[in-house]
């Protein structure tokens, strides 16, 4: 076969493969959105789920997902920021650093179900937190830390060295340079990383089944005292999130409209992830413009 012919054949095969993939992916997205949209309305988004009858919503699950996301971020962001700063600004090239990097890599590749089981063992059983938002937030912190640390480290590494030299030349200590110059300069990239990881946390379920639990007790949305058991802010109550809810009603749900609810909830999840992606782009772009002369 002459090279020209085989070139043409190979390239047409590549076209076929690429278009197949586009069709599969577009069909997937289209299916999620189109089958889910009819189910979504204000009632669906705000009313509590019903176990046995049709017409339940996802209000509590949606609130739980966001609350868990915020708590996880509050716990994991400072740790990841500190770790990222140390790795990029202070760490020397030695065996300790490479051990730490290996550990972070291992953590990022652990199956989330293993992270969830560890959270179950430590927080739910050992520390006696029970199935609670707090246990879930800690489990998600483990799940989130490696990627967030890496994205913060990369954001810091992308700041040009002249900035550090400038800070040191003005007589600032290294720490002051990092806090007052490097971190603000890297902030748009850091925020993009945070928002993208928020999308990942929002959809995680396997790590939450045994930590945040699979039940969503009724909440009293007029009671904002975190120490009351029915308060939405109470971190010690069990909290089924949206992703766990989809899994739960598909494996053991008995309400007649389980399929419609899962379609709607899946669409809400995917639209939220899409929203996080767009927000990440927008925020990164906007802040970058604001912080730089460009």
């Amino acid at each position: 076969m002459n090279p020209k012919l085989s070139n043409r054949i190979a390239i047409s095969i590549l076209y076929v493969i690429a278009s197949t993939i586009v069709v599969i992916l577009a069909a997937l997205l289209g299916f999620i959105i189109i089958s889910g949209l009819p189910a979504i309305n204000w009632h669906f988004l705000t009313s509590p789920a019903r176990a046995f009858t049709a017409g339940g919503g996802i209000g509590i699950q949606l609130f739980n997902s966001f609350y868990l996301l915020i708590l996880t971020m509050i716990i994991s962001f400072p740790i990841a920021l500190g770790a990222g700063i140390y790795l990029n600004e202070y760490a020397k090239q030695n065996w300790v650093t490479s051990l730490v990097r290996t550990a972070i890599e291992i953590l990022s590749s652990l199956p989330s179900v293993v992270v969830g089981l560890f959270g179950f063992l430590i927080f739910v059983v050992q520390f006696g937190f029970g199935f609670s938002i707090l246990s879930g937030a800690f489990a998600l912190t483990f799940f989130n830390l490696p990627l967030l640390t890496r994205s913060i480290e990369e954001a810091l590494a992308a700041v040009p060295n002249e900035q550090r030299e400038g800070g040191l030349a003005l007589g600032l200590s290294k720490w002051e340079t990092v806090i007052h110059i490097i971190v603000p300069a890297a902030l748009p990239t850091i925020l993009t990383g945070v928002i993208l990881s928020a999308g990942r946390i929002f959809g995680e379920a396997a790590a939450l089944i045994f930590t945040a639990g699979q039940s969503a007790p009724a909440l009293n949305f007029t009671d904002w005292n975190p120490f009351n058991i029915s308060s939405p802010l109470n971190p010690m109550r069990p909290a089924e999130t949206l992703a766990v809810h989809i899994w739960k009603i598909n494996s053991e749900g008995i309400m007649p409209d389980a399929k419609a609810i899962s379609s709607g909830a899946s669409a809400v999840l995917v639209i939220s992830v899409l929203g996080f992606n767009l927000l990440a782009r927008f925020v990164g772009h906007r802040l970058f413009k604001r912080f730089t002369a460009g």
Partner: protein
Amino acid sequence: MNNKLQKQLLKRSKAAKLERWGKTISFLALMLITVTVFAIIIFVASKGLSTFFSNHVNLIDFLTGKNWNPNVTNSKGQPEVGALPMISGSFVVTILSALLATPFAIGTAIFMNEISPHRGAKILQPVIELLVGIPSVVYGFIGLTVVVPAVRSVFGGSGFGILAGTFVLFVMILPTVTSMSVDALRSVPRYYREAALALGATQWQTIYKVVLRAATPGMLTAIVFGMARAFGEALAVQMVIGNAALLPTSLVSPASTLTSVLTTGIGNTVMGSLQNNALWSLALVLLIMSLIFNLVIRLIGRKGAMSK
């Protein structure tokens, strides 16, 4: 006066104190992550090994036994905890989905990077980025409503099984493997392509004989990464595989994986009982496999770095 000056000079300045504080705190944050990783490994290992040390299950029986029924004891007076059905289920879905995903992912990556970079960046890139972020339960739900009925009507049976699991994992790991393969292709220097084209090679010859060879370590890393993800995926697989702890006999009969048994079982057993310990042993197998995948990725990276 002299004394005061001496004191001032010998004392740590405010900035130096702050520096020390900052360095310590950021170091502690880093150590917290490291300690957590070791804690996870130690805790899971100690729980998982207690099946063998305190319940005296034979390790070989555990890995090769075909019957998983921890409530029942067999003729030798040993509980029936043969994990072979789950282990083989996990490996079969992982390998099949990787075999299916590899040609598509690499083909798409070549298309995006070599043949039509403009369309690749405009259409494929954003879609793939979005798909990487789709939660796994959503894939599981789609598998349940679309893939399982399709498998049922085409191949018969209940539709639940390895084949459905493979399709779901295929779509799930495809975006990850594709975007990592694109990175691998992108890191091949431009002058490799220019040199090949200047020698009179066609586009396909350039891709096949030069670019793909140079990008092989990166591509392998992408595939192993996809396999690691498939191996550890829990809910999406659990929803479509049928959850029968039987040795898979065909692609369309219900089966189970390590993760699916863990998600369905751990809530129904009592901490510290043999049934529970046996599940932790499955988690340990999962952990060890994840470490092995990690090691393989490292070895590929090292080999790739050496040949450059």
